[in-house]
């Protein structure tokens, strides 16, 4: 259990992240709000409770690494990095604009705190295999966190990486699957079902923990348990709601990659107070 104060703090930060997401995607006029909002609680927990990072020294060698393999959810990552202090919150309004360090998809060369350039699905996940192997080779105890989208696991590369992670017993790698159930063309089970997900990951040698990805207590329990697992990687399958927190975006595939209009931003922000 987390204490009440801590829980409140992470909750408040998650709300802030959601406000940033809606505002920055609205200002950009394009981007991916749905899958950013679904991941806000988990990123809030990771950046404000779980991970050792130092915004003053983004390349600190002992830091925990977070890779957003579902790179299109860049807004939630940028919101978390800005709130954590990696760069000014004001920068968020430059998302997707010319000369901005906040690219449409994460760019490790441009944005402090971004650990891997992602966007082509499946690629970030493989990079975390290399990071986890390097940490083991150097006998370092930092951990590697990676978030995948549910649609992303349709990529074959994901399963190549999944096989490698268990083969090399990467217990310093903790993955989260943002299972919001929707992809661009609609319901994931209509487009190309990835189910049974739990059994698939287990069959690939992973420890699987299933949670409600919006329940901070469950998120806390999952990471606490994940840290104790030895000799294999952990997959936290987090059931989430695409567009979570903004009523008119929730569970609507259309909000995968559509920016809210100014009046919609206003309406959304009222709900996110």
């Amino acid at each position, binding site marked *: 259990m987390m204490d009440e104060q801590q829980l409140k703090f992470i909750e408040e930060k998650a709300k802030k992240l959601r406000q940033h997401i809606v505002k920055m995607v609205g200002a950009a006029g394009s981007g991916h709000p749905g899958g950013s909002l679904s991941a806000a609680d988990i990123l809030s927990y990771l950046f404000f409770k779980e991970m050792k990072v130092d915004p003053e020294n983004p390349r600190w060698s002992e830091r925990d690494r977070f890779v957003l393999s579902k790179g299109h959810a860049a807004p939630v990552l940028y919101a978390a990095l800005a709130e954590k202090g990696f760069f000014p919150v004001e920068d968020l309004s430059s998302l997707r604009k010319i000369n901005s360090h906040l690219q449409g998809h994460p760019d490790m060369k441009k944005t402090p705190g971004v650990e891997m350039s992602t966007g*082509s699905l499946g690629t970030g996940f*493989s*990079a975390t295999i290399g990071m986890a*192997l390097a940490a083991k080779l*150097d006998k370092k105890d930092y951990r590697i966190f990676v978030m995948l989208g549910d649609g992303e696991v349709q990529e074959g590369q994901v399963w*190549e990486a999944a096989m490698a992670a268990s083969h090399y017993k990467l217990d310093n790698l903790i993955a989260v699957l943002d299972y919001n159930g929707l992809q661009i063309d609609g319901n994931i089970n209509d487009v190309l079902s990835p189910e049974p997900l739990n059994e698939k990951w287990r069959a690939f040698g992973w420890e699987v923990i299933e949670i409600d990805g919006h329940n901070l207590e469950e998120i806390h329990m999952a990471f606490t348990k994940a840290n104790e697992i030895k000799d294999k990687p952990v997959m936290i399958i987090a059931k989430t709601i695409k567009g979570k927190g903004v009523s008119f975006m929730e569970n609507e595939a259309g909000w995968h990659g559509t920016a809210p209009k100014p009046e919609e931003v206003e309406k959304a922000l009222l709900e996110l107070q």
Partner: protein
Amino acid sequence: MEKMATRDAYGKALVELGKINKDVVVLDADLSGSTKTAGFAKEFPERFFNMGIAEQNLMGTAAGFAASGKIPFASTFAIFACGRAYDQIRNTIGYPKLNVKIAASHAGLTVGEDGGSHQMLEDISLMRTIPGMTVIVPADGVETKQAIFAASEHQGPVYIRLGRPSIPIIFDDRYKFEIGKASLLKEGKDVAIIATGIMVAEALEAAKELEAQGIEAAVLNISTIKPLDKEAIIQIAQKTGAVVTAEEHNIIGGLGSAVAEVLVENYPVPMERIGVQDTFGESGKPDELLEKYGLKAKNIIGACQKVLNRK
């Protein structure tokens, strides 16, 4: 004549490199016996990672190693490296300019009997269009060894093209390879043969025979396709006024195209290109294939005579 496959030189160089640089890690995709990374695997098992037959993950994992301060050499056949994992090389290695060395063996027709599905003839083209990618095609074992060491010291992504068959040793110990520097192997005033990889030995043979015909052909070895030694190319074009390129690659997008790009903008001269004429390969012995697809010294000689008529 002493012979050695560039992949063998690579394997030996890796072991030497592993001894002096502890940051070097090697990844392979179930082909370590063929790419010759097996020697490193035996010597430094803790720094060797077999990623199985999963080239996309091979490249992505190498990127993760590089992001963690390691110097990964990722090896498989050129067809799988550049074909199967192009997106991973482009987006996870090239785009973030990560310090990954892609050492791809079995490039070109000389794979031989495995046939067209395995004969990578488009890799130079694919790799040189990736911004920031250094592309090296060694001409022999001596150059390969030096190129591997140079690649390990270079900060940024490098593609090194290696071959399967034993090829003549061209260079002696005095040779000094430098990334981005062409080497003039033979002086000549009538025509310049600009070659890369296994075609350098053919070019030297062609130049020798041309000499008997009273034609003085210069031979320029371009082992770094990118960044290209533009000055050396312009200079030799100025000196000879006629150029023939030779490569074991599709004539589209490879050395010939790169040289043409330089000359057309700086010093246009009549030019002929020896290479695979925009087709796939097939099964056969390496020498039979080089013969059938027009990649022998005699073809270079023919191209030289043709280009001289256009002067």
